[in-house]
């Protein structure tokens, strides 16, 4: 039905690739229906299934790595309406090429580390909530398995419609897991926000899919890519393709938290930390990047960046810069990491936008490792300190050596210190941007973002791990905690604009209601008070995976060292992931590499200078140095406000208008009609006075009217002879 583009059937290890997503799905089913009451069993099931997936995906990866095979795919019809028409069938299938094999391995591996970590972590969180028991653990692992299934399905998707399906499913899992502690109002709200905001992007995504697929009479990636290798396909204009690509990119903007739809990701930190690590750092948020990489030929027809690619690059650049600036002023360790994630995703997008296919993908992989490492590390820190607030930490290096070491490695990798993973991948993106025609402005933006990255990472590190342990008691009151709003109130909860607000929230439970059941107090139980004792190192189940991930954070970069550096290493990554049929156009430049090293070191130096000795003083100097910019950053560039007012506000205004129309026009018209009928009836009813003579009068009136009527219709009726004859003869 559509030309099979140089695609082979699944063979070798890849023939088993369907097991990769299936195993976690089975785990989800088993956990949901069989092992719900036993949390540890559920965890074991989930981890076992994922281990199986990892094994299979490792085999697939090895097969792809060792053989230079064409992409392999298989597809089965899902809906068939008109089999002989190219658009008559919607298919589901599996596509195995180097990119997806790589992603499979990454997702399975990182996912496995995170799940092992979660076995210990989630128990400590459950311990905070008296109403939650072992079933919560099952719930957690069930949903994690469902997510893993969806993500693997997304990676293996064979066509655009299928990727949309899994796209929505990962969104669902994200929603469920962000709102995992469903009894916390904030968690439920954050989950909803994540779903709705990403759905805004998905609208564009779906439109773009339909636009592109209907125009090209096919949805499958290989076919689409093939059509674009020689430039814009016949019959389409460049503008059409650019519009379709931009619409599809909207999906990536939503899912990968790019400007301006990034606002959901920081709030998503309400979820348990492993969720943040897996979904909101390593895998799901990278799906947008993966999507752009998948459709790379559409953005770059015949290898030349189209208008859409330019937009991708600049959205990426703006996002990288914006999120990095916001991360500088965050106090919540997870929010620093969340903004850092947004920023790094912006780097990847910028890379893909200027054509750095390999570099973007490479940063995607390395980032997955070191960012999940950082998140898991922050989870360990939070468990130890019972707080997310950086100002309640400090000096953890001495108390938690394993965590410290792993976290430090992650920080260095993120900051871009050579020769750690983040350095190589980020540097390669910068190199591309530098070399790209007209990319100098973008290069400067990204370089400055890299500087900021190094700075906020250093700030985070010093606040958490160096100096003395502050705890809740010694935290500086004016610096700690979520800083109160300055010039604008917090984005208004749109529900209240409609008078649609819940009757009961946890805020109401705080005063004088000690006897309430625990479930009614919700998040009030979160902060279990703890004594002055110093934080302790977490269990090996937690720091074990941290060290494994740290290993990768340190050494993974060597898989993609540019050949121009002269370390003598082959560029494995580029050899594995590159655009088929194209030579590598990028030439190595020393300038950006040196510049990025300098910038990273400068950022670290500035951060260390401010925060190494006396962090309070450093923070005060930072705030006063930033002056008016600081509240602006603290308010996240007012983008949440913008969204709340502009878009949600519009929607709710629409709702109010429509409800008004419903009540006052439509319904009133109906009731008016009914009322007029009723008043007619009332009028007629008033004629029923019960008085015989009145009735008789009406009778006479009717008779007169009848006679007049007949007389008007047939003037001669009463006077005709026939009338009389009829009268007479009728009586006989």
């Amino acid at each position: 039905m559509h030309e099979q583009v140089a695609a082979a059937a699944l063979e070798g290890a890849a023939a088993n690739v369907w097991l990769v997503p299936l195993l976690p799905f089975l785990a989800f089913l088993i956990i949901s229906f069989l092992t719900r009451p036993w949390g540890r069993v559920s965890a074991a099931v989930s981890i076992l299934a994922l281990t199986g997936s990892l094994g299979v995906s490792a085999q697939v990866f090895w097969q792809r790595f060792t053989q230079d095979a064409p992409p392999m795919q298989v597809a089965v019809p899902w809906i068939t309406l008109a089999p002989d028409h190219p658009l008559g069938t919607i298919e589901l299938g599996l596509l195995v090429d180097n990119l997806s094999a790589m992603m499979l391995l990454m997702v399975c591996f990182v996912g496995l580390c995170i799940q092992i970590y979660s076995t210990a972590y989630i128990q400590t969180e459950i311990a905070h909530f008296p109403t939650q028991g072992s079933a919560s653990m099952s719930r957690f692992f069930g949903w994690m398995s469902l997510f893993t299934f969806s993500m693997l399905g997304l990676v293996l998707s064979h066509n655009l419609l299928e990727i949309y399906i899994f796209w929505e499913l990962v969104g669902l899992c994200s929603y469920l897991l962000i709102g995992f502690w469903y009894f916390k109002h904030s968690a439920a709200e954050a989950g909803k926000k994540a779903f709705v905001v990403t759905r805004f992007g998905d609208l564009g995504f779906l439109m773009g899919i339909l636009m592109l697929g209907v125009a090209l009479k096919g949805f499958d990636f290989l076919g689409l890519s093939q059509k674009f290798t020689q430039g814009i396909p016949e019959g389409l204009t460049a503008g059409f393709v650019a519009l379709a690509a931009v619409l599809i990119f909207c999906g990536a903007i939503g899912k990968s938290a790019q400007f301006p739809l990034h606002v959901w990701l920081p709030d998503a930190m309400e979820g348990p930390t492993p969720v943040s690590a897996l979904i909101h750092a390593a895998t799901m948020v990278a799906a947008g990047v993966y999507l752009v990489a998948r459709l790379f030929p559409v953005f770059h027809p015949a290898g030349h960046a189209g208008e859409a690619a330019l937009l991708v690059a600049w959205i990426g650049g703006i996002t990288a810069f914006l999120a990095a600036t916001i991360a500088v002023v965050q106090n919540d360790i997870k929010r620093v990491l969340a903004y850092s994630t947004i920023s790094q995703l912006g780097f990847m997008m910028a890379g893909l936008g200027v054509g750095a296919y390999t570099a973007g993908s490479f940063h995607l992989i390395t980032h997955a490792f070191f960012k999940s490492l950082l998140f898991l590390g922050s989870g360990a820190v939070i468990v130890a300190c019972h707080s997310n607030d950086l100002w309640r930490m400090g000096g953890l290096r001495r108390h938690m050596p394993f965590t410290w070491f792993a976290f430090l490695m992650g920080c260095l990798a993120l900051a871009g210190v050579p020769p750690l993973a983040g350095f190589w991948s980020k540097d390669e993106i910068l190199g591309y941007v530098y070399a790209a025609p007209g990319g100098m402005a973008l290069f400067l933006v990204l370089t400055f973002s890299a500087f900021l990255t190094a700075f906020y990472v250093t700030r985070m590190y010093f606040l958490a791990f160096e100096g003395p342990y502050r705890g809740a008691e010694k935290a500086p009151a004016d610096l700690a905690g979520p800083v109160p709003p300055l010039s604008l109130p917090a984005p208004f909860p749109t529900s209240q604009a409609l008078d649609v607000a819940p009757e009961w929230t946890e805020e109401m439970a705080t005063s004088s209601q000690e006897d309430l059941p625990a479930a009614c107090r919700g998040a009030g139980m979160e902060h279990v008070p703890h004594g002055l004792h110093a934080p302790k190192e977490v269990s090996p189940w937690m720091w074990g995976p941290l060290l494994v991930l740290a290993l990768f954070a340190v050494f993974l970069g060597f898989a993609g060292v540019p050949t121009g550096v002269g370390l003598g290493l082959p560029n494995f990554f580029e050899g594995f992931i590159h655009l088929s049929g194209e030579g590598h156009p990028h030439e190595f430049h020393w300038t950006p590499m040196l510049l990025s090293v300098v910038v990273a070191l400068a950022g670290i130096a500035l951060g260390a200078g401010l925060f190494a000795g006396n962090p309070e003083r450093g923070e005060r100097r930072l705030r006063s140095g930033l002056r008016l910019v600081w509240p602006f950053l603290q308010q996240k560039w007012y983008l949440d406000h913008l969204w709340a007012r502009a878009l949600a506000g519009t929607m709710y205004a629409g709702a109010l208008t429509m409800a008004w129309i419903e009540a006052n026009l439509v319904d009133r018209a109906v009731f008016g009609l009914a009322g007029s009928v009723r008043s007619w009836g009332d009028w007629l009813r008033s004629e029923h006075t019960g008085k015989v003579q009145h009735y008789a009068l009406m009778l006479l009136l009717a008779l007169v009217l009848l006679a007049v009527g007949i007389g008007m219709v047939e003037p001669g009726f009463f006077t005709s002879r026939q009338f009389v004859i009829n009268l007479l003869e009728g009586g006989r």
Partner: protein
Amino acid sequence: MIYDPNPVAFWLLAAMVAGCALAVVRARKLFHAGLALVGTLFAVAGLYGLLQVWFLAAVQVLVYAGAIAIMLLFAIMLTHHMMTPDLKSLTTQPWTAAALCLMLLAILLGATLTSTWQTAPDTTLSPTWTPKSGFQVAEAVPSIKALGFRLLDPFTLPFEMVSVLILVSMIGALVVARKNPALPKAPEGREEEAP
């Protein structure tokens, strides 16, 4: 034979009929209305006589003026103080009713006066027109004998039914007018209760 009633007698009787009838419907005292009715009935009887239907004139006087009118007068006396004027004797809707009655009158007059009746004087009993029931020219002046034959030949059943009807109405009147012991006596002012 062309029948030609005496115009003077007709107009006198007609005036009496109309005048008395007007008195019946407009009299302020009910008793006067009753008396006016008797007058009307006598005038109508006179008209019957003018039409040479003597038997009916007799019946009119006997049954109507004699029996029915007397009964109504009794009813008046049973329920009313004889001579008190009926203060609100004309009810609501007098003007509507008057207008409608005038319209009815106009219609009736229009219909009757513009119709061409197959009257004997005009057609002189053309032999082509014979009603199915048939009649003889000799019977044009209704004799009691002819009337008797008519009543008992084609109208036997209705004739007998009328007797039954009168019987039933008498019994019915008794039943209706009888005090019903099952019903409690209606309290005063019951009519003020809103239904």
